[in-house]
């Protein structure tokens, strides 16, 4: 029995992760049975694909295309008139048909793909640390983070994007850790995966750094020998082979987006050019010439929309945005929606609130501080490195985290705490690597104390997740129960009375 478990340990862990992840992410994801946050936009956009109405918006189309596909496939609202969704960019309650709609279709891609992402996370950590137990433990950080769970259980883009991001990371790690050196087709396939992530939200462009990582491993002997000719020759082939699939995937998704837009909505033409509007009226939306015109219109619309987004105004009443510098400490929370009832004078409120699992977020921050310290100690103080492989992976994932945050800090428009979910995922992987680096000897010696500590950390993470679960799953809270969860004033949790 023992040898059977040992032999099938990875499969057993994957199955366990799948079950736990599904239980946390998928159970009752149709609730709340109401729109919240950006669902009002995305459901409107997804419905336009179903009804063949052209639209443009600031984010690339893949997320909404998947929402439309699942809504169409599940057909849970087949008997409902949702045509009002196509006459607006922001669905309001009075646009909903009588009795409302089911949200299971629209929310399915984000929820399911995020649940599946845990498998990629396991693969990434197992391959980089070589330890399946550590990989399993840190996957629970992904599964039991309240912010990731609430945001993924919705018709929003982050859950879908994180799936493609983790797929890209996994594939990059797989290329690097495989015995044979990176092949050109692997660069191309990685490009496709990155292209899919970018086709959901453009902030996934940070993943282009993965090419640098793969190239660095690919050409490590030439880099060490400073063989510029060899490096240049390889660069001349890998850059087009890697970048072209990113662009092709991105444009292919837009091709479908443009092709499906067979009518102009009566409420808005999105400043589409005359040529594009004529092509729609002529029913030529799938033609390559229409694509060229429409693509330019879409890019122009995305650019002008971004210019119009206001800046962060912390003095504004009800401002939900926050400065990126505070995200690692989980500020500021967002009350997506709430409902309340009073029984005998006691108010019970269901909050649907974006709030972090502080164990996960603070640990990630601690991991980043430790890894920056490690990198400084190596490159500034020339301290020896005890595990080169882990050290370079730590450099890689810390680099991704810091690059993303550096880029975000340059953006002037208002941003929200959920924009931190991408670097949070980098940070969780980095944390697993830092843990493995610090406890390298103990893990190699299968120290029982180390594994008990790790198990306790996971149990603690899960426990704190359930403390904040009422905010994630809209469980009722009294004011006193709310206050027990209002741990830090800077989170700016807002009680409803």
């Amino acid at each position, binding site marked *: 029995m023992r040898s059977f478990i040992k032999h099938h340990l990875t499969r057993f862990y994957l199955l366990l992760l799948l079950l736990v992840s599904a239980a946390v992410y998928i159970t009752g994801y149709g609730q709340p049975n109401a729109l919240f946050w950006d669902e009002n936009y995305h459901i409107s956009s997804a419905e336009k694909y179903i009804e063949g109405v052209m639209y443009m918006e600031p984010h690339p189309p893949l997320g909404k295309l998947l929402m439309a596909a699942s809504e169409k496939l599940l057909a849970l609202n087949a008997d409902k008139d949702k045509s009002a969704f196509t006459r607006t960019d922001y669905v309001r309650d009075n646009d909903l048909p009588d009795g409302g709609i089911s949200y299971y279709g629209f929310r399915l891609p984000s929820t399911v793909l995020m649940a599946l992402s845990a498998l990629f996370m396991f693969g990434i950590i197992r391959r980089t640390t070589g330890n399946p137990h550590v990989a399993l433990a840190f996957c629970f950080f992904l599964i039991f983070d309240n912010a990731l769970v609430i945001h993924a259980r919705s018709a929003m883009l982050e859950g879908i994007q994180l799936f493609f991001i983790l797929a890209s990371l996994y594939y990059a790690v797989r290329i690097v850790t495989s015995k044979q050196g990176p092949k050109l087709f692997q660069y191309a396939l990685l490009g496709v995966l990155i292209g899919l992530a970018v086709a959901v939200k453009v902030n996934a462009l940070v993943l282009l750094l993965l090419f640098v990582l793969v190239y660095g491993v690919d050409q490590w002997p030439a880099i060490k020998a400073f063989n510029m000719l060899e490096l240049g020759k390889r660069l001349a082939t890998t850059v087009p082979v890697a970048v072209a699939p990113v662009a092709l995937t991105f444009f292919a998704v837009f091709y479908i987006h443009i092709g499906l837009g067979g009518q102009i909505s009566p409420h808005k033409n999105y400043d589409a050019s005359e040529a594009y509007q004529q092509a729609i009226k002529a029913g030529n939306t799938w033609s390559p010439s229409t694509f060229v015109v429409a693509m330019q219109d879409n890019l122009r619309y995305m650019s002008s929309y971004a210019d119009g987004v206001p800046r962060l105004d912390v003095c504004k009443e009800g401002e939900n945005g926050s400065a990126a510098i505070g995200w690692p400490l989980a500020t500021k929370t967002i009350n997506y929606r709430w409902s309340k009832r009073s029984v005998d*004078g006691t*108010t019970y409120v269901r909050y649907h609130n974006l709030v972090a699992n502080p164990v996960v977020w603070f640990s990630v921050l601690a991991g980043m501080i430790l890894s920056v310290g490690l990198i400084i100690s190596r490159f500034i103080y020339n301290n020896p490195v005890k595990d080169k492989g882990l050290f370079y992976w730590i450099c890689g994932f810390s680099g991704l985290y810091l690059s993303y945050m550096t880029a975000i800090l340059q953006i002037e428009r208002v941003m929200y705490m959920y924009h931190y979910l991408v670097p949070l995922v980098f940070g969780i992987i980095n944390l697993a690597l830092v843990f493995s680096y610090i406890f390298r000897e103990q893990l190699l010696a299968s120290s029982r104390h180390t594994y008990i*500590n790790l198990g306790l950390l996971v149990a603690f993470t899960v*426990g704190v997740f359930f*403390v904040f679960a009422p905010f994630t799953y809209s469980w009722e809270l009294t*004011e006193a129960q709310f206050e027990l969860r209002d741990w830090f004033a800077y989170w700016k949790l807002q009680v409803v009375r």
Partner: protein
Amino acid sequence: MLKNIVFSCLLALAVVATVNKLIPPSVKPVLTLVLSKNAEQIRQIDQPRQITDTRHLLIDRVELNSNNRFKHPTLGVLGWSENFFADIDTQFTVAKKSRYRFEVGSDDGYQLEIDGKIICQFQRDRPFQRNTCSHQLSAGQHRLVLRYFQGYGNAGLTLKAAPEGVNKLKFWGTKINGVRYLKPSQP
């Protein structure tokens, strides 16, 4: 080995801090506070009560006014959001004869009674306001009863006191010159 111990200690600290955050807070039991939910809307402090639910709490001081709520600084929000009475009945002794100043802050109405005599009151609802009144207390045992009601909207109740010659008023329940609180009745 050392690293494992350090990690265990950090984990233990984090767990203790978390549990500490989650344990409902407690204070020194000095005064008994009785909260009574009324079935009907309360408009006046002395209207007939139709109690549907009662809660007994032990508190350390009458400082129940934070963020416009019936809220203790440590215990948090107490009572209900609307239509309830709060009663504080204190047995105390005074060391030597003196005139005492009392300051009651309330949103909504209240009655302050000492040894069976109402010394100040505001009968109806109002936003949070303070009233000051004085009363001569002889050396020996006395009884203070503070009645309060919350109708609807914002809420809050405070009671402070000080003997003659002392400027700074202190919350009832805390150490006040010459006053010794007798053990409160157990809820």
